[in-house]
């Protein structure tokens, strides 16, 4: 198993390099003088000159890429001009908040989605199946940012059950119950679409599995139906559900950008949007590379989980 993880990590290196190249190429699309574009309204002539020197804009592109890459490898992602602090510090701090939000949403949508899919498949054409199909249809059609706004209206403004926005209460907050209180709405809003998608695909994965001969064998042995579904059926269906979870994790991470804006969550998505509006491009560049790299590593974890689940995969 250790060898397999190592192998997958090594195979991720070209992907990670590819990501840096793509981001580098996109950033070189900037029209006009990059230093001015990057510094934007914060530019003073000295800053522009310094940045030009820092970025080595007199040097050829390939050389510039390698300088940027080697700096990143030593943890130097450059300096944010709008915040006046190292990019990596800001990204790490913000990523922490995003991880709490997106992680919670991911756990929620995985559990709820798979459960709904299994129930739906086991009760195919029954009342529960129809109800779940209907809710799922609504769920995947509501834009997460609109859903978030409507939740604020319903649960924060009208019912006053939950705080409107933010990660912690301004006065007297900061502990775990306070965090959970602030987390409930954004996590649910973020999980909604992915829950729907996972429920749909889990349902068809289960339907596919339940038709297999080994399910008939389990029934012929006299295994109780609950175990046939939740054991034999789900276990086999997980092999095709796990990759779906991996893909949905990417969508949850993407959706977090909107949810962080709606709920004023101090995450990396809101940081990126602010940075774009302020033309703080080094912060954008660093944030994008960092989050994309984390996502690639997460996908390796998904592959490893998959190989643990399916003994037929050669490790």
């Amino acid at each position, binding site marked *: 198993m250790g060898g397999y993880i190592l192998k997958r990590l090594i195979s991720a290196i070209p*992907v990670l390099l*590819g*990501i840096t190249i*793509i981001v580098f190429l*996109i*950033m070189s*699309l900037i*029209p006009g003088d990059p230093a001015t574009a990057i510094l934007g309204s914060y530019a003073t002539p000295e800053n522009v000159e310094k940045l030009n020197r820092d970025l080595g804009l007199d040097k050829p592109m390939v050389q510039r890429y390698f300088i940027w890459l080697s700096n990143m490898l030593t943890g130097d992602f450059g300096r944010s001009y709008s915040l006046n602090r190292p990019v990596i510090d800001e990204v790490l701090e913000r990523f922490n908040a995003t991880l709490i939000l997106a992680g919670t949403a991911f756990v929620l949508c995985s559990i709820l989605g798979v459960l709904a899919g299994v129930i739906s*498949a086991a009760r195919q054409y029954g009342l529960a199946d129809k109800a779940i199909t209907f809710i799922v*249809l*609504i769920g995947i*059609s*509501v*834009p997460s*940012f*609109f859903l978030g*706004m409507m939740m*604020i*209206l319903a649960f924060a*403004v009208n019912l006053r059950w939950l705080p409107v926005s933010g990660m912690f209460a301004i006065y007297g907050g900061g502990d775990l119950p306070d965090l959970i209180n602030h987390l409930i709405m954004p996590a649910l809003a973020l999980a909604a679409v992915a829950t729907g998608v996972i429920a749909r695909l889990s349902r068809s994965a289960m*339907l*596919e599995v*339940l*038709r297999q*001969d*080994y399910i*008939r*064998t*389990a*029934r*012929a*042995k*006299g*295994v109780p139906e609950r175990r*046939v579904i939740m054991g*034999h059926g789900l*276990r*086999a269906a997980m092999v095709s559900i796990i990759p779906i979870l991996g893909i949905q994790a*990417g*969508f949850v*991470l*993407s959706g977090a950008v*909107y949810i962080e*804006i709606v709920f004023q969550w101090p995450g990396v*998505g809101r940081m*990126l*949007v602010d940075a*774009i*509006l302020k033309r703080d*491009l080094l912060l954008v*560049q660093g944030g*994008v590379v960092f*989050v*994309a790299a984390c*996502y*690639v590593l997460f*996908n390796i974890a998904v592959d490893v989980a998959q190989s643990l*689940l399916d*003994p*037929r995969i050669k490790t």
Partner: protein
Amino acid sequence: MTFLRLLFRNRLAAMGAVVLVAILILVLITPLLPLQNPDTTATADRFQKPFSDGHLLGTDHLGRDLLSRLLHGTRLSLAVGIAAAVIAATIGSAIGIVAGYFGGRIDNVIMRVVDMLMAFPYILLALAIVAALGPGLMNALIAVAAVNVPFFARNIRGITVGLAGREFIDAARLAGMGHTRIILTELLPNVLPVIIIAMSTTVGWMILETAGLSFLGLGSQPPQADLGSMLGEARSALISHPHTSVVPGIMIFLIVMSINLLGDGVRDALDPRLRSGALSRPLPTTLVDRQGDIPAATDDLLAIQNLQTQFHVGKRIYRAVGGVSLAVKPGECLGVIGESGSGKSVTALSVMGLVASPPGVITGGAVRFQGHDLIGARYETLRQKRGDRVAYIFQDPLSTLHPLYRVGRQLAEAIQSHHKVSSAEARTRAISLLKDVRIPNAESRVDNYPHEMSGGMRQRVGIAMALANEPDVIIADEPTTALDVTVQAQILSLLYDLRRDRGLAIIFITHDFGVVAQLCDRVAVMYAGRIVEEGPTDAVLEAPAHPYTKRLIACVPELGGGRRALAAIPGLPPVVDDLPPGCAFAPRCAKVQDACRTQEVTLAGAAPRAVRCLFPEEAL
């Protein structure tokens, strides 16, 4: 045409289509409607409620008419979303076709890049592009299109690879056509439908994504507004004046949902597997809908009495089992023989309600175990008998053993489903069961997964599983068909010993008379869902009475019998949804007479033999 009919039979899809068309018509005629200028501000009239004078949907924070802004915004959102979809589809498909058509290194390089692009959570890529190009609707459009290019490239490449190897492409190449011409005239027409379907399923998504970027303030810039930026601007007044948020939000929801509904409908209508209803899961027990009298109990151990099992697919009814009666006593081995599709497996599965349902339905007769009728019995009654009193051995153990559980666990589970036994004890039992079926190194084999064993080994596991609870009856459904001859001989002798030592009753289903001769006391021959002949094995083999039995025996090659023409039976068994009156074998029978085609033929003869033939080979 059938496609459209199928699509609109789906009521949800039709509803989606209606909503979508209504919205499309509305935005197309928007410039003609008597609307106020969407950008005219009137600060005195800000935040008017819906249904107020002159403003059907009220006004926004600058006093602009919401209805007018909504329709113009929808127009813009749809235009941008569709434009992004067309651009992404065109570029992505072009890349996909080139990669798939040329293959080799070009394909390799292109697909590597595509994979890398897909390694990004899509929004990061979109944000990076908008960051570089600067916020603005055009740049948002470019970003959304670019993010979706890899999706099209990968899908279309897959289709193209499949097509590029086909004869008509080779033919075009041999005819001297250039690459460009082949791609445009031969490949593109075949790929186009797939491109259009992929586009129809993603266009809703792209409308949503551009709206999202505008919502973040990175898309359309004021005063121009699409649905996303309307929602984004309204957000600051969400709590005080929610209607300014609700109006554009519901419009986005309606658009996305109607496209989703329509897309689902399109996919379902195109997927032939869904059309036949094949993707339904089997219920825990076969459905029972019994008509007619229920036969009285007998003193047999297991008696199948006038069993009728059908498959209901759409309006067609397949009579897979049309009134079959069989019985076994303790220690007896009954062979059931017939071609594929003769209903022998369905008969066997009906006993414990294991026929997949839907589409299977048991419509008549009874199955009595020790006198108690199992058809229509409660699930729990049936479950307690399954594997405990009546056990099955199935064909093809690779697909009948669970691929992700160790065989020991599967054996232990068979025991623990019926007896309260500790896991350690169950494991010990599992090992001794593996020894009983003569698996070498049972102690280590118990931890194997099915894919780590050979076919013969897996079949032994299947037998061990059937023996786990020392059942009274074993129903073996072609247990040796997937195996080579030497392994088959071992398995047969194993079954023979078990039967002798433990007094098991065996119902042995096969298409091989050789196997029947070796193992069975009695044999029943099935054809088109009915028994056409039955009797003691020796007697039937020696003097078959039914022409079908005779020909079936003649099909078996004899070792040392010298060269002789093997007499294959001409024709195929009939499809059981529309059986002709009279004898089902008549169309293939060499001795057929007119009476055979009109008259109902009954199973008749002096016990223990019986035959269903008007002109039997042997008088019984």
